[in-house]
């Protein structure tokens, strides 16, 4: 039976949600970290560490829950290096993030070398009763795997946490004015460590999604630059979890269209299609930056990128 246009669109959109999910996790992790004032450019490396760890655990135990948690913890451990170097040792957050990417690429390539080509069974989709029977929307959002549902919960939780709780207010204040927060007795150090490491763990879950859902076999460098798209999306989403969701699915759509167009006989080189998400990222980043420049009150956390030392002018 021929698929109708609407059915085709629904299939593509459902795939967009899947392709967008790891980017969404990455962006959410970045949002938490940057709201507290610490840039994390290491997402590409963290995702690779998360992907490798959860792949190995899934391969040997078969348990998805164990695999995803292991991926999160491994990424969290690697992020603590970034936290140590740029929070306590006051080094450049940018250079430290790049070091994290090199480290993650290296460690996943070295330890994953012997796993190349090994496969695992990918995660199954779960139909949510009632919700999945909503026309169109049900098929796009509610016939997905468990990690996609986890991402919905994460968006809601982080949104609530950042904007409706005391802790969230503290995190955001530290991102804006660490010296003021310090003077009223908040521990800038503790909050920043917590935000960066928890953010890193969420990025790790995004990495896990690559290896146990999207690409259920191990290949070197399987994130292929998509961690960097998440870095850019943090800015595109104006440091907001809700907008992160929108942005991630937009890029998910670009990535899934790329795969769809390769399947149908279209006269565009796959290499051009592979460039497309990166070109789109540059365009999106430019639009977001211009819009941010025009706002009277900047959305970007004011202390972003600066180390905080008590009792010193910086």
């Amino acid at each position, binding site marked *: 039976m021929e698929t109708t246009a609407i059915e085709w669109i629904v299939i593509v959109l459902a795939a967009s949600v899947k392709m967008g999910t790891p980017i969404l996790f990455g962006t959410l992790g970045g949002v938490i970290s940057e709201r507290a004032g610490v840039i994390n450019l290491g997402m590409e490396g963290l995702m690779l560490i998360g992907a490798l760890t959860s792949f190995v655990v899934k391969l040997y135990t078969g348990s998805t829950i164990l695999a995803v948690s292991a991926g999160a913890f491994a990424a969290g451990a690697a992020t603590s290096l970034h936290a140590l170097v740029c929070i306590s*040792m006051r080094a450049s957050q940018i250079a430290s993030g790049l070091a994290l990417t090199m480290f993650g690429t290296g460690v996943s*390539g*070295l330890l994953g070398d012997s796993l190349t080509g090994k496969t695992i069974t990918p995660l199954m989709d779960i139909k949510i009763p009632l919700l999945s029977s909503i026309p169109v929307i049900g098929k796009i959002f509610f016939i997905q795997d468990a990690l996609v549902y986890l991402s919905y919960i994460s968006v809601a939780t982080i949104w609530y946490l950042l904007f409706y709780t005391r802790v969230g207010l503290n995190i955001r204040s530290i991102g804006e004015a660490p010296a003021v927060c310090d003077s009223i007795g908040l521990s800038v150090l503790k909050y920043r460590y917590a935000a960066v490491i928890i953010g890193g763990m969420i990025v790790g879950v995004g990495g896990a999604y690559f290896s146990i859902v999207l690409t259920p076999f191990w290949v070197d460098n399987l994130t292929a630059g998509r961690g960097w798209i998440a870095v850019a999306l943090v800015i595109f989403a104006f440091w907001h979890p809700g907008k992160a969701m929108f942005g991630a699915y937009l890029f998910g759509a670009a990535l899934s269209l790329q795969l769809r167009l390769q399947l149908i006989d279209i006269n565009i080189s796959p290499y051009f299609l592979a460039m497309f998400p990166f070109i789109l990222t540059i365009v999106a980043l430019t639009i977001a930056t211009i819009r941010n420049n025009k706002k009277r009150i900047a959305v970007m956390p004011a202390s972003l990128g600066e180390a905080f030392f008590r009792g010193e002018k910086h």
Partner: protein
Amino acid sequence: MIHISFEKRIYSSGFIRMSITICAIIFALLTGGVFLYAIGVNPFSAYFNVCSQIFGNKWGIEDLLLKMSPLMLTGISVALAAKMRLWNIGADGQIYMGACAATWVALTFGGSNNLTLLPMMFVAGITAGALWIFIPAFLKAHFNVNDIITTLLMNYIAINWVDYLLFGSWRDPNSLNFPITALFAPAATLPMIKNINLHIGFLIGIFIILLIYFLLSKSRFGIYVNIVGNNPNAAEYSGINKKKLIILIMMISGAIAGLAGVIELTGVHHRLQQNISLGYGYTGIIVTWLSRAHPLGVIFNAFFMALVFVGGEIMQMKAGLPVAMIYLFQGIILFSVLGSDVFAEYKLKIKRTA
């Protein structure tokens, strides 16, 4: 309870700085050793083997200097941008595009086999490198779009573009389906330095570094760069056209990386293929950081990072380790050098409190 805090050093010197960096590198090699041990390689014998291979004979040192050439160029490329607080993370992409433009010249005009071929390839490659960074430079200068992200994303576009050509119209029909172009005409080969097995790209690298050094320290242009780099507001008041200068500096930075691409192409590979750059652009960032963006420091630190590269290649051949090991070591080295920087300005103070 033990309370650890930093206390500002009253006295800090170049000597303290250097000793701390050396300690950081030793620390990095030990940490890297743990990873080697984890995959069943004895780190101490591995380091010993690498050193004796490299310094034990003429070929080892030649190989080292050969690897140093692109690293000096990407190092000075990143360092020049860093002088203005700009980031060129896209040197890899500029290498690819530089090599790509030079290849086009070689494939189009290669038949003539004349003396103008090589200079034409250089001009094409340098121009391509400069143009490849133009979009990020323009966006940075006019809208302050994050240059780290844009220059980096351009790498992925460049690599896909080169793949498109290599798997398409540029593939050598006699290559047994490997994604490589045909070998270039002999006129497209970079001359060698007399008596040693090393192309003149090495000398070009040193020359470019000296040129940038004198430009930065002795010219009006250098003064402008330093003013904008150190105090952007002062630059506005003194009437320097900051936007123009940002674009110019980034394009020079891109041109130098493009030059590295042509040198790798004409000095080493003699045809376009994948992996023209093994992440030399990213290594340039470490070189810049280790030398604190000082041009002359770039020479020394390019030597050190070349040691890591050649060491990694030796381990690849001897122990069958993947190329990723080089990135792992680079990450660890950059982490520990970054972490150690604080000790040049501060002392650790450990207090016991009841």
